[in-house]
């Protein structure tokens, strides 16, 4: 078995692009769900409108890269407002389904043949990331180091994406940290517990929910940018409900309403996915698991990841950073 490859890919995935982009989306969800109690199941749509906002502006309309970023951000804010105005009065579980529905609508429109000229149909758009890579300060080449025998190298493009991505994560975590220990964050948490009580204390619940939705949406949309830029393309299906589910999983894994929860959750999630796959496929290739073929590795990986998720949450229902006491309250 090629342990070096396994370890190297696993370590790289811990800081890789997927970790970054799911981490960002999960930070957004953490604000929505973890702190405010908004069951927003449409996070993928925020990522989507951002990615497509950028892509369409640059690739279809041939406008500059920075304008694309602004359009993407604007689209995320607009989506939050459009989604929020009618839905924020709904009870949590109803909100969940409405946001899922809205996100699916957004995805289906991106994907549809009718709008193929704009959004590119099921293949999406590409060719909008040059502006970003033009800013890359790293000359072409591979960067990294050897951890003992394990090589950990990224090429200049990836390194640039990762640098920006992790900076974004750091900034977002900093913002979340500052906000959540402020009175503003306190109002959010109170809304999570009981809106009516908060209303009776003179806080404009709707406005706070909206602020939360916009903030989380904008942070989520950064994930959409990272996706688009790292893969130099956007595709509709990545912005489906599956992505949102995974983000929730990540939030809960790390511990809801914890600043670093989503980041650690994302790392765990991707490490789990990559490690399990690496070990399995190598073991099968080496003939250690004679009853399995290499095609079966794919499904078995998910079976094991599913099991891993179950076990993690069975034995640590509050997530990695979560507070057991919080879980004990009102465990219904």
């Amino acid at each position, binding site marked *: 078995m090629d342990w070096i490859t396994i370890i190297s890919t696993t370590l790289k995935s811990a800081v890789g692009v997927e970790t970054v982009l799911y981490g960002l989306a999960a930070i957004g969800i953490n604000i929505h769900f973890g702190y405010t109690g908004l069951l927003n199941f449409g996070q993928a749509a925020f990522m989507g409108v951002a990615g497509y906002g950028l892509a369409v502006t640059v690739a279809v309309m041939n406008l500059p890269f920075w304008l694309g970023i602004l359009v993407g951000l604007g689209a995320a804010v607009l989506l939050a407002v459009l989604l929020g105005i009618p839905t924020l009065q709904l009870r949590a579980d*109803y909100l969940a389904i409405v946001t899922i529905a809205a996100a699916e609508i957004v995805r*289906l429109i991106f994907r549809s043949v009718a709008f193929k000229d704009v959004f590119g149909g099921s293949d999406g758009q590409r060719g909008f990331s040059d502006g970003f890579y033009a800013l890359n300060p790293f000359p072409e080449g591979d960067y990294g180091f050897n951890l003992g025998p394990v090589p950990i190298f990224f090429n200049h493009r990836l390194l640039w994406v990762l640098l920006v991505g992790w900076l974004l994560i750091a900034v977002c975590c900093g913002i979340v940290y500052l906000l959540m220990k402020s009175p503003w964050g306190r109002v959010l948490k109170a809304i999570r517990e009981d809106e009516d009580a908060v209303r009776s204390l003179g806080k404009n619940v709707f406005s706070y929910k909206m602020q939360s939705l916009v903030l989380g949406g904008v942070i989520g949309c950064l994930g959409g940018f990272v996706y688009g830029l790292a893969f130099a393309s956007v595709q509709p299906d990545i912005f489906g409900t599956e992505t949102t589910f995974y983000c929730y999983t990540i939030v809960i894994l790390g511990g809801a309403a914890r600043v670093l929860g989503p980041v650690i959750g994302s790392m765990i999630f991707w490490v789990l996915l990559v490690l399990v796959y690496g070990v399995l496929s190598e073991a099968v290739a080496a003939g250690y698991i004679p009853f399995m073929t290499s095609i079966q590795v794919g499904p078995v990986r998910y079976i094991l990841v*599913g099991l891993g998720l179950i076990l993690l949450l069975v034995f640590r229902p509050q997530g990695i950073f979560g507070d057991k006491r919080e*879980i004990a309250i009102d465990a*219904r």
Partner: protein
Amino acid sequence: MRRAVIAFTAFLGGLVFLLAGPAHAGPAECQGLKGTLKLQGQPVNGVKIAVTTEGGQPVKEVATNAQGAWDVQVDKPGKYKVTLDVSSLPQNAEVRGGTNVRTLTVYEGNCSAVLFALQPKGAPGQQQNASAEESPFWTQFAQLTFEGINLGLIIALAALGLSLVYGTTGLTNFAHGELVTLGAILAYAFNVGMGLHLIPAAVIAVIVAAALGYAQDRFFWGQLRRRGTGTIAMMIISIGVALFLRYVFLLFFGGQNEAFAQYTAQPGVQIGPISAAPKNFVAMAVELVVLIVVGVALLRTRTGKAARAVADNPALAASSGINVDRVIRIIWTLGGGVAALAGVMLGLSQNLKYTMGQDILLLIFAGVTLGGLGTAFGALVGSIVVGLFIQVSTLWVPPELKSVGALAVLIIVLLVRPQGILGRRERIG
């Protein structure tokens, strides 16, 4: 009589080719344009056809032979114009659609077919003809309404199981779609794998799935409840379970579509404006009966009421002498069985695939929510609304976006009635 024989021979042409050796099956030696003229199935002889280049330079002029066929070979690939000489048509014939000119491309080493559809003179032109043949709006509407109810009932059945479990335990079970798939795959295993007829296979599948539902709660969810695992953690665990089950299915069932051994591609019958397969009616009847029986049972029977009591307040239910675990287990058993039945019905009406449950999960959730969370009849009403809107909305939106219609309706209804159609608002203070 002779013509019939010729037609028959032509019809069997394919078979001839099949029997012929590879020599016949080689690439056709042809580069040009060709076509066959027929009027009401009979070849038309002696019609003049002129081929020119795109620019108008004449290439060749031919007439159709006894079989109605003509062909023009050209030297260079490229665009050519084909004109049918209307005056050479038989008295009683005309070209459908009116235009007698076709412009098309000839590709290197290939012949392109040219079609001039003929029709008896005096018959309406093709354009009008087509719209005359088109079924009226209401026929389509009726068909789609029927399909909507058909789909809605399947969703409702699946939604019922979800709603029951959600109602009693507060678990948002993202693995419910997989329970639906499980039912279908179990039935498939008994049906195709073991050779039972579908009906007993389905019955056994539902029973086995119900037993598995019981076991799930007994050995898994129930244990988690006992440990005091919160509903949110359970929800994420259910995502894990969904992944687990889905890929177990992929491993053992494979990624392809399958169908049951019986009732596949059952020919439809026409009833008024609706065409439907007999199996649809049986399935709908079964679904409706199950839904109503379960719904009424929840409202009327002691266990049903106990289930609602447990949903409201498990601790108080226990204090009233209700064995909460038992009630939940009954609900899981029922939910598992009903979900499996939904899977069988879905497999019967469509096909089986390892993602079949996952693919309708969103619709299930939409149905449950639209009707009002946790109410049995709400799930029924909500699902049918969802089913109807999916189908009927295609009258106006492209079918690829048909879910958009349903989801948009969901959003709109919830805006007007935030508690769902049959849900009740909660009292404040």
